[in-house]
């Protein structure tokens, strides 16, 4: 590996701060550059935000349990659903996918880390602190309240004088930096750090989907950044991009937001597809059916994701021609998605299916994603969308896709990879019991919302009248939150128990197919004692069952010592955290027009960047084959 061969000489610490060496304690977590630790941090942080968003959702459902309730004021209600959506999309589900990518892309391609470990740490910290920034709004005058897509001109200073919108705009602006750098990091890693023999068409589908996702991020986030910047300028410096009285066109925000926002949906769902494409083959004991088609359809979905944004805007009066165009492009996305569903079924066909927890979650994903996909096609019909848009039908649709789809897929991934990440085994029986609460509760909540929407219930209203036929649907929906809540608590308890006192996990408990299962559970800091070599698509399976695979003989790599001179492990660093922290504090400076603070933090950013650039290679080498030498200095 490239990293293994470079930096053999020792370099003096040139920065202001020493690169720490400790592997325990808080400092070691703040300065870590290990992709596995950062992956776990991503997963834990996103789970924390998921919990917060669930509490918000629970209050929303209590408020809507019956007509004309006054549990929360309209103002608080607006903050709750805005923060719920914002949190779930930007701070919970998307980073959950990033967490898995962080942990498993290097392991799956047989690498020792991401290409830029410190950049990876920076990506995590700026995401976590960006999320924290948004959440401090609850204590600093009120959270954003204009919905997660924050339509102009509701966000203008005259319509929304509090700081809530500033928290939204600046918080997403900060968080977006982290998403972008992580995407670039993943692209470079996937292109340049694959194990010997792992051609692009031998990569696990999860890695492929992460690659497509990373490209989507790079093309999708700039329009959002532009739009956020415009509103920050409007609110802070008095520009007039979205001020109608000065001739501003509020519709521009919708175009910029959704040309980001639709790809964002695929940024969330494609990694989920990737997880499913790993879990289903493993638990069917068969290779993925139609691998090239799966890859191609993933790329096609990603590409088309940029051509459908206006289907969020069918009711804005774009006219019949534009609505037809965007309707047809949206329908077209149904084709590769349908192909994926067929191929997952084809993978199971003829297999030996084990109903372990990850597989059960994957099957639940299939079930609910088909429903969400069908309502998606229905909503892509502009005449029906005219009725359903902005109603609970849409709410039900995107929860089936994002919750029943992405979240269930990531839970499948969490159960699938939990033994690998922790070295502990969870109780399958407890996990399945919690699954049924979670699954039934979810469907109780969201299935009735389709009908509430069709019966004329708009979304984002904090109350509704009796007598419109909405009572029964809302009551069942709220009842479902209790069932799902029980499931959620059981899931958390199950994981906590497994982590503290679970049975030790085997290295390969599922008889899986990809390289992460070839190393120990949990993997050592350097991931693999021996550089793995890919001789077939499912590289680990091919090694275990050479008779059943069409593997190369691998002789091309025989006799090459890939780890001559030991494996270089990068040193830890304070700069990613420091840099993120300065951006975080600087955000408050910009928001409160406290320019000395903003400028000071800008200087800290410059200084940390400088320190980062010149702190030297650092790190140490490990020699797993001769453990006597392990940990010997540079």
């Amino acid at each position, binding site marked *: 590996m490239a990293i293994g061969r470079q930096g053999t000489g020792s370099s003096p610490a040139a920065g202001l701060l020493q690169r720490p060496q400790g592997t325990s304690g808080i400092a070691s977590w703040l300065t870590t550059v290990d992709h596995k630790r950062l992956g776990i941090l991503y997963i834990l942080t996103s789970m924390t935000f998921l919990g917060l968003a669930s509490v918000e959702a629970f209050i929303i459902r209590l408020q809507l349990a019956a007509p004309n309730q006054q549990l929360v004021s*309209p103002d608080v209600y*607006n903050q709750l659903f805005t923060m719920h959506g914002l949190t779930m999309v930007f701070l919970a589900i998307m980073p959950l996918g990033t967490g898995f990518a962080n942990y498993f892309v290097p392991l799956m391609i047989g690498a020792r880390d991401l290409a830029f470990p410190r950049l990876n740490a920076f990506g995590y910290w700026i995401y976590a602190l960006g999320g924290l920034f948004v959440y401090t709004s609850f204590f600093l005058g009120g959270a954003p309240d204009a919905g997660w897509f924050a*339509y102009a*001109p*509701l966000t203008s200073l005259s*319509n929304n004088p509090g700081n809530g919108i500033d928290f939204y705009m600046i918080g997403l602006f900060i968080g977006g930096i982290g998403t972008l750098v992580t995407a670039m990091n993943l692209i470079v890693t996937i292109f340049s750090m694959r194990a010997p023999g792992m051609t692009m068409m031998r990569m696990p589908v999860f890695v492929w989907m992460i690659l497509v996702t990373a490209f989507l991020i790079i093309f999708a986030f700039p329009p959002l950044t532009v739009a956020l910047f415009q509103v920050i300028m409007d609110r802070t410096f008095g520009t007039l991009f979205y001020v109608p009285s000065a001739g*501003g*066109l509020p519709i521009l925000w919708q175009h910029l937001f959704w040309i980001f926002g639709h790809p964002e949906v695929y940024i969330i769902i494609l990694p989920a597809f990737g997880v499913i494409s790993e879990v289903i083959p493993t638990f*069917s*004991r*068969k*290779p*993925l059916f139609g*691998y090239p088609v799966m890859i191609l359809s993933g790329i096609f979905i990603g590409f088309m994701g940029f051509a459908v944004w206006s289907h969020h805007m069918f*009711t*804005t009066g774009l*006219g*019949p021609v534009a*609505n*037809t165009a965007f*309707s*047809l492009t949206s*329908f*077209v996305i*149904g*084709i590769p998605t349908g*192909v994926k569903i*067929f*191929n997952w*079924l084809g993978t*199971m*066909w003829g297999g*030996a*299916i*084990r109903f372990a927890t990850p597989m059960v979650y994957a099957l639940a994903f*299939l079930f609910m994603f*088909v429903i969400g996909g*069908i309502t998606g*096609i*229905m909503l892509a*019909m*502009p*005449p*029906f969308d*005219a*009725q359903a*848009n*902005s109603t609970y039908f849409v709410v039900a649709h995107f929860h089936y896709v994002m919750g029943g789809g992405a979240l269930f897929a990531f839970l499948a991934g969490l159960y699938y990879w939990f033994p690998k990440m922790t070295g502990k085994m969870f109780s399958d029986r407890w996990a399945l019991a919690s699954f049924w609460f979670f699954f039934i509760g979810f469907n109780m909540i969201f299935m009735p919302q389709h009908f509430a929407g*069709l*019966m*004329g219930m*708009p979304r*984002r209203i*904090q109350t509704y009248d009796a007598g*419109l*036929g*909405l009572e029964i649907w809302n009551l069942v929906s709220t009842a479902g939150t209790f069932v799902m809540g029980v499931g959620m608590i059981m899931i958390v308890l199950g994981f906590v128990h497994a982590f503290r006192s679970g049975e030790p996990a085997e290295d390969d408990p599922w008889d899986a197919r990809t390289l992460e299962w070839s190393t120990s559970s949990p993997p050592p800091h350097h991931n693999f004692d021996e550089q793995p070599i890919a001789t077939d698509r499912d590289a680990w399976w091919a090694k275990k*069952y050479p008779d*059943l*695979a069409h593997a190369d003989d691998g002789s091309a790599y025989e006799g090459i010592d890939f780890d001559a001179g030991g494996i270089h492990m990068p040193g830890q660093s304070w700069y990613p955290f420091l840099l993120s922290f300065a951006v975080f504090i600087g955000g408050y400076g910009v928001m409160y027009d406290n320019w000395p603070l903003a400028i000071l933090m800008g200087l800290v950013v410059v200084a940390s960047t400088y320190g980062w650039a010149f702190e030297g290679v650092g790190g140490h080498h490990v020699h797993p084959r001769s453990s006597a030498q392990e940990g010997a200095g540079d």
Partner: protein
Amino acid sequence: MPMTQWLRRAAFLVGGMLLLGGCEFTGLQSTLDPAGPIAQAQHDLLIWSYQLSWIVMIATFGVMAYVLIRFRRRRDDPDRIPAQFHGSAPLEIGLTIVPVLIVIAVAVPTVRTIFATETRVTPEAGDVIVNVTGYQWWWRFEYPELGVVTANELHIPAGRRVILNLDSADVLHSFWVPRLAGKRDLIPNQNNQLWIEAPDPGTYYGQCAELCLGAHAYMKFRVIAESDAEFEAWADSFQTVDSRAVQADPDVQQGYQLFATKGCTNCHTVQGYRDGSSVGTPDFPNLTNFGLRTTLAAGIVPNDRENLEAWLRDPQAVKPGNYMPALWQEDDPNADEEIAAIASYLLSLGAQSGPEAQASLGGSHGDR
């Protein structure tokens, strides 16, 4: 409810969910109970796609169930490794064609319906034109050809096409009368158009469908479809209106004066309130012929004396978040009397066409 009734209700609900119709799904604001040509076309498309969805779901979930049962791991042979096949080109091509066909089956009627329901129309003879302006959190309806301005209740003649020009005075709103037509957004600096038609007289419920903060949940309205004659009479009552020709009831008279002295006229227009000059501004609900309204505060409550007095006393209690101020301190000893008087006056507006109770208040009143 006894058990059997619950079961019947549940059966109707489930049956309705499967068929997307039935008596449980007729509601005042239900898209499943269309009453106009646009809502009907949108509904037909929904039903078509819903039926197709059932075919897709039955096929997909059927195959899935078959696979899960047929190919589950057997207890008697737990370590079996199945044949490792990677795909099948003919099958994959075939399975790509299936979604293509489904998409075509949905796309053709969709495009036809888009052009039938969303093409901008030019007014023809017989059409009624209404300029709709959304405000936080009420609706202004102006009939430019009839010289009528009103709020929150859109009167239309049944069986005639009504062309709505949609605009917003502040943030985004969305005009939605589910039983007549799907929604269309009201966007500042953008001229949107929607047309509706109600074949039968009746009252159709509408609601703002785009988040506009504050009292968004209370931004409702009614569309009241009437026979041609009733509609003409309603519109004519705005031409002949003379608010000073109110009933000779002293309560009404007092209310008429308080309407100015308490500051109502700073915002609200009542046509003919004064000779030769108007009161209020166009950016607040026009109260001309207020007594003819069936609802209050943008479709929130029925327009009767009790609700009106409650509204005047504490607008925030009726419609949290709205911009109407409370005009009386809680300990104001005159509050009850004055509120009753203003309510009497407001309810009398539009009722003056009744022949028996007509009287003039004379020119001296209302001058300040």
